[in-house]
């Protein structure tokens, strides 16, 4: 009852607020006033139901219940659902991804390429932000470094794609370390601001150093990747790049999942959790931080080289802060440190706007609303609680106890 009264009050308040805009139509030529009570009533009704829903959601949140109960295995939250189901889903996704360019148009393939590039970027940033907990806001700078490495090396030295791919990664790592050294002592907000500045420095340098980088005009006529000297048309080339990016993403996933479950990965996570305890446990924080920056930035370097080869044209406008923010949103929405979640979030954030072009006017509005809702109801991101299983002595008995305690909580 209380909820209904509250929702009604909210509805009335919204009706009053929106009345001047929605309820009155002034025609200044004919000097007539039209009262549109129906619209106001509609507004009230809509607000009433939304407020009811809102109240219900908050009540569930307050009682610690999930808003939507996910089916088992849906988000990998329940290890009991077995690795078989998960592996099946992943294989199906992989098969779909491999078949995709053969079945759909070149337009779709190109969209998918950029989505996969973002998956790579998001996974790279996931190492720095998700695993090591270092909030970096200028990640796109490393992407730019990779792209310009290829662009410039091609322009001045005529180097090809396959030579530049590793070089792009190396350059990004070098820049990662250049950024890493001065910010070793910073954490949290301070780190975020400095890295934000770093991103802007890189972009502004590219934009204003016209004699070398071509300034805002950028670099054009960057060749697409070659395959043993084979001549390819635009269509074949796109498909080729698609498989290239897909392979790169798979390698990224493999490397990052191995890294995450290793001694180095544990140290990175410990750094995220508590820096002082980390030091006291014998971990060289300087070294771990620098490796986080290096490991994270190299993926952006690779992605940058592929991006330059895909678009054949780069300019500083592709590397604005907006891109960094977008990549960071993918990591946050996906769930810090989760590989599946971050990859899924990257796909969602790129593909959904592409396929919902009809709503493109409301894109930022929807994006903002989704962000706010996520932060209120699921701040930990889409996928969380992925625990690695370790083989411990006398495992069976111990596992039963753990499982029992899980069920007790669920």
């Amino acid at each position, binding site marked *: 009852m209380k909820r209904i009264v509250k929702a009604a009050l909210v509805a009335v308040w919204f009706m009053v607020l929106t009345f001047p805009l929605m309820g009155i139509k002034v025609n200044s030529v004919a000097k007539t006033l039209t009262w549109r009570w129906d619209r106001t009533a509609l507004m009230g009704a809509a607000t009433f139901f939304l407020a009811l829903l809102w109240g219900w959601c908050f009540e569930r949140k307050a009682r610690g219940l999930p808003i939507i109960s996910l089916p088992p295995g849906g988000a990998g939250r329940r290890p009991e659902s077995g690795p078989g189901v998960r592996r099946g889903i992943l294989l199906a996704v992989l098969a779909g991804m491999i078949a995709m360019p053969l079945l759909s148009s070149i337009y779709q393939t190109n969209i998918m390429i950029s989505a996969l590039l973002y998956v790579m970027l998001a996974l790279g940033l996931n190492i720095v932000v998700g695993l090591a907990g270092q909030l970096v806001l200028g990640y796109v700078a490393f992407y730019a470094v990779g792209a310009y490495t290829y662009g410039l090396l091609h322009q001045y030295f005529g180097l090809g794609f396959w030579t530049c791919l590793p070089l792009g990664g190396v350059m990004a790592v070098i820049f990662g370390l250049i950024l890493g050294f001065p910010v070793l002592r910073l954490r949290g907000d301070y780190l975020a601001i400095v890295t934000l500045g770093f991103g802007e420095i890189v972009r502004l340098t590219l934009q204003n150093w016209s004699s070398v980088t071509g300034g805002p005009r950028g670099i054009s006529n960057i060749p697409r990747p070659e395959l043993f000297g084979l001549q390819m048309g635009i269509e074949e080339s796109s498909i080729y790049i698609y498989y290239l990016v897909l392979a790169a993403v798979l390698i990224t996933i493999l*490397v990052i999942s*191995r*890294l995450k479950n*290793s*001694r*180095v*990965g*544990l*140290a990175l*996570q*410990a750094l*995220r*959790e*508590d820096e*002082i*305890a*980390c*030091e*006291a*446990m*014998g*971990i*060289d*924080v300087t070294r771990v931080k620098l*490796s986080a920056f290096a*490991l994270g930035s190299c993926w952006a370097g690779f992605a940058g080289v592929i991006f330059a080869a895909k678009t054949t044209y780069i300019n500083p406008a592709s590397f604005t802060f907006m891109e960094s923010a977008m990549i960071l949103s993918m990591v946050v929405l996906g769930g810090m440190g989760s590989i599946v979640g971050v990859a899924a979030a990257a796909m969602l954030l790129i593909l959904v706007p592409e396929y919902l072009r009809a709503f493109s006017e409301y894109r930022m509005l929807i994006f903002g609303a989704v962000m706010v809702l996520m932060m209120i109801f699921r701040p930990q991101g889409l996928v969380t609680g992925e*625990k*690695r*299983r*370790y*083989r*411990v*002595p006398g495992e069976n008995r*111990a*596992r039963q*106890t*753990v499982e029992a*305690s899980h069920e007790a909580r669920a």
Partner: protein
Amino acid sequence: MKPVLEVTSLSQNFGGLRALNDVDLTVREGEIVALIGPNGAGKTTFFNCITGIYTPTEGDVFLHMPDGEKARLNGRKPHKITAMGMARTFQNIRLFPEMTVLENVMIGRHCRTRAGILGALLRDRGTRREEQASVERSYELLRSVHLHTLYNETAKNLPYGAQRRLEIARAMATEPHMLLLDEPAAGMNPHETRELEDLVREIRDSRKLSVLLIEHDMGMVMSLSDRIYVMEYGSRIAAGTPEEIRANPQVIKAYLGEEAHA
């Protein structure tokens, strides 16, 4: 008995504030030594000084290594000091809250294992074997603090007393020969405190290490420690066996104030 930790005239200034003033302290092999004093006496500052979180303004900190070497710790980084065999716990528990119980202890193994990035990527035999050894070693340590059944639980979900025990297990994972415990019994009930006492004794006996602990629970301090150091306002005011400390008028004054004599 040989000394393990030797601190001579240690002082620490924070700007104009002298937080530690000329403190001497020695822990000998296999001893349990307590450091007590009223709140704000500088006990935790003392810990932070000798574990490398602060660099002492004056004085020396020496750690005697098991091979007989005497190493000066002043100005060394905390992780180096831990690697040399001095581990600590924290007054306000500093676990890695989002990681599992087992992973928390495995972090402690970090400085005793070698695998690098390349090993992580290749997952070769050596790396896998090292990791499994680390898992088993950590699990053993968990067993010794009775947390092994909860090994896959997220650390933040543990009850308070269990978190304290986990911190000790994590410190033990670094294979120390000198263990520093900062208020290990804080927030524990009498039953848990007794268990903790047994645990500390057991660790000392089975692993042949020396323990320096800060504690406010006088019952525990008196029954557990071989010797006690008392601090007040950054200075050492007394040192001796529990009986001597109990009878020391200066200590009584520090704890109860001037009126106690009246």
